[in-house]
């Protein structure tokens, strides 16, 4: 019986992640090949969420978000995390190479998710880490710390880019 409960919890978590993904402004859809990760809000909720996020970010976070679409947060214990513009496993500990996944139990635009994570990590990280799932995102020995967020974003982009069908590939002249 406890096993069944665990499976139900896991299924509910996956469903929430899927719903969040479908409701969100997926980054880089219009500029994927150029590596342009900017959140591209396509609906009023996404625009509203992005405006709120930008208004709450600190000046340094806003500058980073404008340039790279991610920003850094620091917990009260002086641990630094990078919040990436994705709907799951988007809180990166660039030091260890691990990423964390936790967010509101509601269908929200990605910018709202990022805002919730920023507020939690900066004021009440215990609450975040008490429920967050964790996975290894990259090998920290392979890259300098400053390049790790970009590396994760590039890797996510590679896995989310649509693969062309063979009929869509132009024939050689």
């Amino acid at each position, binding site marked *: 019986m406890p096993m069944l409960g665990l499976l139900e919890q896991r299924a509910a*978590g996956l469903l929430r992640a899927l719903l969040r993904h479908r*409701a969100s402004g997926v980054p880089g859809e219009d500029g994927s090949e150029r590596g342009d990760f900017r959140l591209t809000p396509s609906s009023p909720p996404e625009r509203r*969420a992005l405006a*709120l996020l930008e208004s709450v970010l600190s000046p340094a976070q806003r500058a980073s978000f404008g340039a790279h679409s991610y920003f850094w947060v620091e917990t009260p214990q002086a641990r630094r995390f990078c919040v990436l513009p994705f709907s799951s496993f988007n809180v990166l500990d660039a030091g260890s190479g691990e990423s964390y996944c936790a967010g509101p139990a509601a269908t929200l635009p990605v910018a709202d998710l990022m805002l919730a994570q920023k507020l*939690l990590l900066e*004021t009440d990280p215990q609450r975040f880490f008490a429920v967050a799932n964790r996975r290894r995102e990259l090998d920290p020995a392979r890259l300098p710390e400053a390049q790790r967020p970009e590396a994760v974003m590039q890797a996510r982009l590679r896995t989310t880019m649509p693969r062309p069908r063979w009929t869509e590939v132009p024939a050689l002249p």
Partner: protein
Amino acid sequence: MKTLRVLDSSGDTSISFDDSTPEARAAARALFDARLAAGATAFKIRREHGRPDEKVTDFWALEEETVIVPRIVGG
């Protein structure tokens, strides 16, 4: 005037209320308490002077703007 912003699928739902009006204050307090009872977390948002945002659980400690985040779960 004080503002409560509840994050939801519309981006956020914003409720502004006059803190000096008992009816408006009571309605805002009912919303605030109901959300927190459902597991939400509220944060004071401070945009000026580099003051950090702050978690808040007491309605009477609210400042100009508050963001309410629904219950946090692992993804």
